[in-house]
């Protein structure tokens, strides 16, 4: 272990078939890259938006439970969603939901075996970001017109 540690060999300890300990290289991991790439960024964001959407679902549970429990509770919920903070939260949920949906469709295409070559991966990654921005704005234009 006197040689300098390559970040790709981050202390992975394995065993040989005779049981003796051996340090084996780990496949290239996050620390081997010095910059965020669109492939890793879309993947990380897909997980973050999935978690954020799980939290956002609590607002739907609140709204439904308030509707079932009575007019007072419902008005409290409805007033929150109409407030500045409420609109801010709903806008955030809209962006998160569109991102996770579009990135999810990208995953479904991969599951079907399509779009694995790098130019397509980069193109669909950009499409997810552009689509998220466009659909979030479009959703709110329709929402504000309908309000």
């Amino acid at each position, binding site marked *: 272990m006197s040689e300098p540690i390559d970040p790709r060999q981050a202390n992975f300890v394995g*065993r040989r078939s005779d049981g003796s300990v051996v340090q084996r290289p780990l496949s290239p991991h996050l620390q081997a890259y010095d910059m965020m790439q669109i492939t890793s960024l879309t993947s990380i964001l897909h997980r973050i938006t999935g978690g954020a959407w799980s939290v956002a679902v609590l607002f739907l549970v609140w709204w439904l439970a308030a509707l079932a429990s009575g007019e007072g509770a419902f008005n409290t919920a409805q007033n929150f969603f109409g407030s500045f903070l409420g609109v801010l939260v709903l806008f955030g949920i809209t962006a998160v939901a569109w991102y996770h949906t579009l990135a999810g469709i990208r995953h479904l295409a991969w599951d079907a075996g399509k779009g694995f070559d790098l130019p397509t991966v980069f193109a669909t990654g950009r499409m997810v970001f552009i689509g998220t921005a466009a659909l979030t704005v479009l959703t709110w234009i329709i929402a504000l017109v309908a309000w």
Partner: protein
Amino acid sequence: MAKNPSHSMRTPLGRVRGLGSAKSGTTHWWMMRVSSIALLPLLLWFVFSIFGLLGASYAEARAFVAAPVNAVLLLLLIGVMFHHMAHGLQEVVEDYVRAELPRLFGILLVKAACLLLALISAFSVLRVAFT
């Protein structure tokens, strides 16, 4: 089979061959895909429904949820959404929690919370629909 698999010369494939199929091995992965596809039309319907509910009064909101088609679609959305959410969050716990007990309790907590939230939501829809 060797007592200590890590000392065995047999390949992992050789050790499991003949022990039967993995049975539900791909169920989690497959159900994530099925639920995600089901959620696409359900969420589009839900978003368009919200457009009609913005600034709705108590009576208007109750009438919307109580309408048979809306109540059924809401229950469907609740079921599929929390299934997808529980299984997605389970993957997160499995990826980041290494120790056996915290991992087990993390997964149980995720499943319990999702089931509880799903039941609260479904009960609320049914209560509005039937009262």
